[in-house]
C-alpha cells in the first residue's frame, strides 16, 4: 500500500513545477515518468523470475512433504495403491520394531560422538591455520580437501579397504607389533570407523571458523597482551566467547547433517547396516524400508519422525543458545 502511494506521488510530481520547462527539466521529467511506469506496470515481473524457485518450493519440497505425510498413514508399497491404515506405522515403530531402536541408538551415538570431536578439531586446525605462514593457502586447501570429497562414495569405499581385516590400518598397527581386527565388520567398532570418517571431514566447519577468526577485533588482543594475558587466557577469555555465534552456527548445522548421514553407512556396510545393525544409521534404515523392503508408507513415517527429531534438536539448540552465545550488539 505504501509503495503504491509513493509511486503515485512520484507520478504526479512532473505536473507540479510552474517553471518553464528547460531541456534538463524535460529530461528529468521523462526519467521520472519512465521509472513510475516501470514500477506500476512491472509489478508481476519479479514473480516471473522467481517462478522457477516457487515451482521448486511447491513441486519439490512442499508437495512431496505433504504427500509423504499422507503416505506415512498408509501401507504404501511403491507398487500398488496406498491404503489408509491410520497411525499403525507410528505405533509399530515405537512398540514393535527392534531395528528401529537399533538405528536410533546408532544414530544418536554417531551424532553425539562425531559432532563435538569434529567441531573441536575444526576449531583447533582453524586456529593453527589462522597465522601468517608461508604457503598457508596450500595448508588450508589440504585440510579442506577431505570435505570436498565429503559424501563421495569413493571415500567410503576407501574407508572399507583401510579399516577392513586386511586393510592399511592393520598393516600400520602391525609395524608396532599390534595385531588388529576387522574394524568394519565387528559390531563393537564398526560405528567408530564411521565416526572417524565424519571427524576426518572437518573442513567445512573449519573454513567457517577461519572466517570467524578473521573477524575478531585486533585491538582487544592488543589490549589483552598489554595486560599480560597468555595464549590460553586469550583463547578462553577472548577468542572463544567472541566466536560463540560461529560455534553455534556450526553446531546446529553439523547436528542436522549428522542425523541425515547416509552415504558412508550405506557404502561401508555394503548397504546392510551391519554387523548386527551397528552401522544402521537412521537414514539407511529409512532407505532400506522404502526401496528394498517395499514399505514406503513406513519409510515416510520414519522420515517424519526424523524431521520432528531434527526440528526438536534445533529448537533446543536455539533455546539453549541464549545462555552461552554472545552477540556483539
Amino acid at each position, binding site marked *: 500500500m505504501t509503495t503504491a502511494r509513493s509511486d503515485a506521488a512520484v507520478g504526479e510530481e512532473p505536473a507540479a513545477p510552474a517553471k518553464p520547462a528547460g531541456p534538463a527539466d524535460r529530461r528529468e521529467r521523462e526519467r521520472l515518468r519512465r521509472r513510475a511506469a516501470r514500477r506500476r506496470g512491472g509489478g508481476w515481473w519479479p514473480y516471473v523470475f522467481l517462478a522457477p524457485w516457487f515451482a521448486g518450493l511447491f513441486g*519439490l*519440497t512442499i*508437495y*512431496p*512433504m505433504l*504427500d*509423504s505425510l499422507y*503416505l506415512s498413514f498408509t501401507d*504404501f*508399497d*511403491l*507398487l*500398488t*495403491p*496406498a491404503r489408509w491404515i491410520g497411525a499403525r506405522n507410528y505405533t509399530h515403530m515405537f512398540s*514393535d520394531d*527392534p531395528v528401529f531402536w537399533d538405528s536410533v541408538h546408532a544414530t544418536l551415538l554417531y551424532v553425539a560422538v562425531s559432532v563435538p570431536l569434529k567441531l573441536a578439531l575444526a576449531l583447533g586446525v582453524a586456529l593453527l591455520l589462522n597465522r601468517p605462514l608461508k604457503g598457508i593457502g596450500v595448508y588450508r586447501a589440504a585440510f579442506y580437501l577431505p570435505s570436498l570429497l565429503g*559424501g563421495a562414495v569413493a571415500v567410503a569405499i576407501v574407508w572399507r579397504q583401510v579399516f*577392513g*581385516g*586386511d586393510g592399511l590400518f592393520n598393516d600400520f598397527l602391525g609395524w608396532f607389533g599390534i595385531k588388529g*581386527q*576387522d574394524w*568394519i*565388520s*565387528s*559390531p563393537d567398532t564398526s560405528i567408530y570407523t564411521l565416526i572417524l570418517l565424519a571427524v576426518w571431514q572437518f573442513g567445512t566447519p573449519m573454513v567457517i571458523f577461519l572466517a570467524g577468526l578473521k573477524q575478531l577485533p585486533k585491538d582487544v588482543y592488543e589490549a589483552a597482551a598489554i595486560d599480560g594475558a597468555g595464549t590460553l587466557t586469550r583463547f578462553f577469555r577472548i577468542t572463544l566467547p567472541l566466536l560463540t555465534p560461529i560455534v553455534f552456527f556450526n553446531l546446529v548445522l553439523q547436528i542436522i547433517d549428522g542425523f*541425515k*548421514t*547416509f*552415504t558412508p553407512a550405506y557404502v561401508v556396510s*555394503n*548397504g*546392510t547396516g*551391519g*554387523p*548386527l*545393525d551397528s552401522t544402521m544409521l537412521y*537414514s539407511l534404515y*529409512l*532407505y532400506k524400508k*522404502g*526401496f*528394498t*523392503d*517395499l514399505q*514406503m508408507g513406513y*519409510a*515416510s513415517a520414519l*522420515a*517424519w519422525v*526424523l*524431521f520432528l527429531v531434527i526440528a526438536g534438536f534445533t529448537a533446543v539448540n536455539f533455546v539453549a543458545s541464549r545462555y552461552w552465545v554472545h552477540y556483539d550488539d
Partner: protein
Amino acid sequence: MGHQISRRTLFRTASGLAVTGALGPALTACAGGTGAGSDHGSLTMTWWGSDERHAAYQKALATFGKNNPKIKVETRYSGYDGYFDKFNTQVAGGSAPDLLQMDTALVAQYARKGILAPLDSYVGKSLDLTGFSKTLLAAGTVDGKLYGVPSGIGVNQLTVNRSGLERLGLKLPGREWTWNDLKKIATDVYRKSGGRIYGVDDGGGSTLQCFEIFAREKGQPFFSDDGRKLGFTADTLQEWWEFWTGMRTDHACPPPAITSAAHNDLTKNAVVIGKALFTFDSGVYGAGGSITDAQLDFLPTPQGDFAGAREGNFVNGGVLLSATRASKKVADSVKIMDFFAQDPTAIKDMRLLRGIPPTEKARSLISAGLNDTDKRNMAMADYLSRRVTKASDALPAPVPPPQGANRIWDLLFQSNLAVAFGKKTIKAQLSEFFDQAQNILAG
C-alpha cells in the same frame, strides 16, 4: 477414471521424492536418474550379473537384432546390489523395463502385486518351452500361472578350492557326503594348514544353499505352502545353530568378522580371500565370474546322516526372464525369451552364465566348448538333478517365496551373527527370530 489414474501416477512418482524431500540431498542420488522412459519405440531390457554375463547377453542380443530388425532393444545392466531397489523405483515411477531378469526368490512377490505379465497364453505359440521340465518351470510359476522363463537349472552346490585342498594333502570328499563329513574335513583343513585357513564359510545364517536343505532333510520346507508361516520348527533351527557353533569352536569355519564382511560382498567371501576352501556361495563361480585363481570343484550340499533323513536338495530355475504387465511390448519381450530359451547361438553365447542350460538339447549344444571347471560344474549339476528326480522321499521343490522372504533371510543371517559374536544365546535368539519372522509374514 483417466483423471484418477493420472493422479495416482503422480502420487507414486512423488513418493520417492517425498522421503528424499524430508531428508534433503542425501538421498537424491538414489531417487534421481532412474526415469528411464520405455515408450520410445525400443524395448528396454535389464539384468544383473558379472561382466562376462553382460558381454554374453549383448552378443546374443546382437544376433537377435539381426534376425528381428523391427525390435530395437535398449539394454541396462548392473550388479545385483541395488538392482531391485532401482526396479521398484522404476515401477513406482511408471518407467519399468519391458523385459527383465528376475530373481526366483522374488518372482512371487512381483507376480502377486500385478507387476509381471502372465505368459501362459504365449506358451506353445511364440514361446517354445519344449524340453523344460515341470520342476524347472515351477521356479517361474506363481499360483498356477507362468510369470518367468527359467534360464537354466540351478542346484545347490558347494564350490571347493581343490588345489588348496590338495596342497594340504587332503582328498575331495565323495558326492554322497554328510554334514559330519563336512565338519571333519573342515576341521582337518584348519589343522593341516597350521591354523591359517578355516574349512568352510559359516553357513549358520545362509539360507538358500544351506539351512533350507537341512530343514528339508527333516521333511520341513522353509516356508509353509501358503507362505504365511515358517515351515520349520524351532528345534530344527536350534540344532542347526548348535552345529555351526560347534564348527566355530573347532575353527572349521571362520570367526564372525569374516562372515560379516562377506555379507552382500562376494569379493570378501572366505574362499575368495583365501581364508577357507569350501563355500556355500555359488556366486564365487558362475554368475560372479571366477575371482579365484585356484582350481575349483563342486559338491552337493551335504546330507543328513540321522535316521529318516530325506533328500534335501532340489532343482530351481537359475534366473528368470519376466515381462512387466504395464509394458506395451509383452509380445516382443516373449520373442526374446523364446530366443534365449531355444536359439542355438543364444545358448552358446550364454554358456553357463545363467546356470546350467535348461534343456537336454541346450546342454549338448554347449558341452563341446566348455573348459574343465565348467565341465565339472555341469557334471555335478547333472548328477544332482538326477539324484533329486530319483529320490522318492524328497519334498516337492519349494514354492516361490512369499513377500518379506528376503527380510527373513536377512534376519536369519543377522541372528546367526548375533550368536557367533556372543551377543545372544541360541535360546534367546531363537525366540527373537521366530517372533520377528512371524511379524514379517503376518505384515
